[in-house]
């Protein structure tokens, strides 16, 4: 190709122009506002409506949540107006964070004995130490890390939390509660449902009729019944069929119910991914002479799982929130403990319930939003070909 810049022709520029700053109309706050908020008359109307809505709604909300809120106090008097039997001026309404403050430990640990709570803390620290490196792609030794988190950690956590051995006192599960139960249930559910879901999905697409039937029956049975029903049956009907005095641990019932439930949903999500795989991938693997296990492990599943990350995380988030249903069987997860404490007459005020529910909602949101953001990050990182 001819070198135009050095050709010496008069109409060809000899050197590059220096870079210039972009025109003022295409940068800065003004441009961003114009393109994003006021691009068309319709956009302008929507923007104005939204601003009006925020101006109308946000200040009172912030006022209620923070400015007028009560942060410290010893009982209902702190969060009630004079007419309600408290100390606040009439007409006052604001969040009662003093309630959350007083009950905070209960919201986290339930009624786990106070002098044993370091065991819960230690378990949480262990989990964070194992989970964070697994989530950061640049940290090595993923295989060892995963084994530690999903095989060793549950056993250590079991002995730490339940106790009864190694000089630790036994803490029965009815005393567990709050965020502890929420996290135990969802961690167990997530750790069981992903592998079990993969197996069920593969089983359902298997050519072996018995395995296929078993998987289909399991998935359809479980998906056909609401979780509430399963938990309710487990707590009300099951004891009637057991010999008198024989009782199943309630937390165990909930763990099994939640894990099997999530597995069935997970199986269908993954099956969707398996079906989206082009046939060529299967045939290509066969042509290379890979056996079934190798084919799935090396070719199909890595691509499938990447495809269905949104679906998997969706199931995880659903599972995380479903754990609240254990109140049906008299266990108290975070939301359950918060609600239970509404019945404490020492804190009964018109604002207690709203404050407690906002707190519970916020904690749930933090976890769900975290999972959601991480899944977006993983999708972007793994998305090599579809862009």
């Amino acid at each position, binding site marked *: 190709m001819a070198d135009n810049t050095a050709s010496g022709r008069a109409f060809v520029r000899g050197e590059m122009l220096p870079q210039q700053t972009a025109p003022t109309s295409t940068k800065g706050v003004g441009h961003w506002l114009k393109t994003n908020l006021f691009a068309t008359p319709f956009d302008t109307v929507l923007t104005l409506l939204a601003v009006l809505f925020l101006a109308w709604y946000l200040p009172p909300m912030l006022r209620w949540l923070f400015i007028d809120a009560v942060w410290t106090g010893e009982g*209902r008097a702190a969060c009630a107006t004079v007419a309600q039997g408290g100390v606040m001026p009439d007409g006052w309404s604001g969040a009662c964070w003093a309630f959350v403050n*007083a009950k905070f430990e209960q919201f986290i640990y339930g009624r786990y004995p106070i002098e044993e709570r370091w065991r819960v803390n230690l378990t949480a620290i262990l989990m964070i130490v194992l989970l964070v490196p697994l989530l950061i792609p640049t940290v090595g030794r993923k295989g060892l890390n995963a084994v530690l988190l999903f095989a060793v950690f549950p056993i250590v956590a079991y002995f730490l939390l339940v106790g009864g051995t190694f000089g630790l006192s036994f803490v*029965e599960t009815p005393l567990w509660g709050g965020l502890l139960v929420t996290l135990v249930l969802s961690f167990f559910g997530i750790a069981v449902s992903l592998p079990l879901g993969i197996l069920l999905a593969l089983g359902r697409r298997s050519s072996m009729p018995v395995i296929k039937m078993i998987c289909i029956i399991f998935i359809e049975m479980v998906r056909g019944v609401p979780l509430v029903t399963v938990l309710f049956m487990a707590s009300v*009907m099951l004891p009637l069929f057991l010999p008198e005095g024989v*009782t199943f641990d309630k937390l165990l019932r909930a763990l099994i119910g939640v894990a099997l439930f999530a597995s069935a949903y997970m199986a269908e999500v993954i099956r969707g991914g398996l079906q989206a795989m082009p046939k060529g991938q299967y045939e290509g693997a066969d042509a290379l002479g890979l056996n079934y296990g190798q084919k799935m492990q090396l070719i199909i599943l890595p691509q499938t799982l990447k495809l269905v990350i949104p679906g998997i995380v969706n199931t995880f988030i659903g599972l995380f929130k479903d754990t609240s249903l254990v*109140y049906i069987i*008299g266990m*108290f997860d975070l939301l359950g403990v918060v609600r239970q404490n509404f*019945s404490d007459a*020492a804190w009964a005020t018109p604002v207690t319930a709203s404050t407690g529910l906002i707190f519970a909602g916020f904690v749930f949101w933090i976890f769900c939003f975290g999972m959601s953001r991480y899944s977006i990050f993983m999708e972007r990182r793994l998305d090599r070909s579809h862009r």
Partner: protein
Amino acid sequence: MKTKLIAGLLGTAAALAFAGAASAATLDDVKAKGFVQCGANTGLAGFGAPDDAGNWKGFDIDFCRALAAAIFDDPNAVKFSPLSAKERFTALQSGEVDVLARNSTWTISRDTSLGLDFRAVNYYDGQGFMVRKDLGVSSALQLSGASVCVQTGTTTELNLADYFKANNLQYNPVVFEKQEDVNAAYDAGRCDVYTTDQSGLYSVRLTLKDPDNHVVLPEIISKEPLGPVVRHGDNQWGDIVAWVHYAMLTAEEFGITQANVEEMKNSDNPEIKRILGMEADTKLGTDLGLTNDWVARIVKHVGNYGEVFERNIGQGSDLKIARGLNALWNKGGLQYAPPIR
């Protein structure tokens, strides 16, 4: 209708499964394991709710503690199973709990078909109405056409229907699953009337924005005798549960309190001596399967009936429920204990 059917089926199944069973001596089991397993409410203001430290506190809770004190001389030798309204009777039938102290109303069907025994009434309750003052209503009979906030799945809902039907009144039920939803709806003016047990109305008032603008109507439309429940067939255990309640009543009647129980042991009054097990050669306690100082143990650790009442739901609490029907028989109430002799 559907829930009734299911409840009926459950009840039948339970009765079938436990007819004749459950005759093992509960007291021996309890002594062997070293604590009383007590079925408690999942949370009811004043009757059973966790305090700031997460300890169960309340009127029903203290009954269980009294039971533990009588048996073990230790009010903490008790474990609580929070039970929902749906699972409470199954839990008792299946032996998950030894006694149910969870504001359960004594009715004939529960006493007979469920294979349970109600042995005492430790709180006489009844369903009442609360309305806004500006409605200008002074009797429930003026409530025709009103919208009524009520919690679903309770006898409250059925009593309400019965009452309005019997008096030829129209009403619109506004039903909710959760107590706090009912409270919020009533406070927000979505209904004119709030109905629940009277003891519940007191705790509802605590959550209202303007409690002085609400009034409780005089009508009580149902009888709700609440008390501890045991399995049918174990009479000794039933006796103990009943007499723990009577012991607390008797202690109040004779002025034996947590503070003075030790000096009362030296009292010259033969009745007080007999109650506290100081009479020579007494067998009152051992015949019950307990020790002779069982009443003293209850009062020492938990207090008499009046003390427990005032501490949890009466003037010493935020609820400030009046004694009313629950005053002693000689003070115009219904609480009457058979003599301890």
